[in-house]
């Protein structure tokens, strides 16, 4: 009479499980790139199709800021025109905006100017609490 051999109980070896886990862990650790985007937000005005009425701004509600190609800033508020260093821009704009919350800041950047000057100025304007900002170029 043949006697059947006892079957081995099948089992998944768990000794190397942590090795596998660590391998996967290292893979995800090295491939993960936290892609958090941060930036300065602004809403553009819609393109004019000629049907909209142009609103004329009063001079006292408009502050013009020019950035020339070397990053120098000139500011015109009312009739006063003056050069402003980048460091003081935030302080000055903050003062203007708290005095007149309706103030529109027009940021005009030279076409040959560098993008970083515009971003820096926009950063200062937003930090100063200016909400009505218009971007333009010559």
């Amino acid at each position, binding site marked *: 009479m043949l006697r059947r051999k006892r079957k081995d109980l099948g089992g998944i070896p768990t000794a190397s499980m942590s090795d596998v886990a660590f391998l*996967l862990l290292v893979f995800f650790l090295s491939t*993960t790139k936290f892609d958090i985007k941060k*930036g300065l*937000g*602004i*809403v*553009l005005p819609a393109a004019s199709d000629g049907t909209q009425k142009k609103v004329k701004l009063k001079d006292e509600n408009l502050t013009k800021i020019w950035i020339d190609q070397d990053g120098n800033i000139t500011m015109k508020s009312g009739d006063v025109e003056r050069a402003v260093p980048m460091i003081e821009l935030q302080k000055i704009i903050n003062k203007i905006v708290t005095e007149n919350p309706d103030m529109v800041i027009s940021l005009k*950047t030279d076409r040959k100017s560098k*993008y970083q000057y515009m971003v820096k100025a926009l*950063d200062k304007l937003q930090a100063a609490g200016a909400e009505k900002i218009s971007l333009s170029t010559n």
Partner: protein
Amino acid sequence: MAKIKKSARPETAIPTASMSDIAFLLLLFFMVSTVFVSEKGIPVRMPKAKSIEKIPRNHSATIYVNKNGTISIDDFVVSIPDVKYVMQKKLAEDFNVLTCFRTDKDTNYGIMSDILNQLREAQTLRVYFEAKLER
């Protein structure tokens, strides 16, 4: 004189039984948080700014502009007049689309101004200028 007998130091051992639990926990965390970046873009050096806010990722369309004025959207190089059509298509796909600029800090502003005008014509008006946090 009484001898002071030093008590035998207990053997220290790090318990390794829960190591795989920790490994799996970390593994799950990284698996869940990993986002495989779908576009390569073009290398740019972004400007720095302080008052930056987080850009919602799920609605953003990224426009890369490098300092030579090359514009890349979804890894396709596009010319300035084509930006309008590409963005109109994006707007049709997602009504809440917002444009995210990854522009090199030395790019001429003229190019950016032209692109902004294209965006205005495409009616994609929410724009973010991506920047690094200045410390």
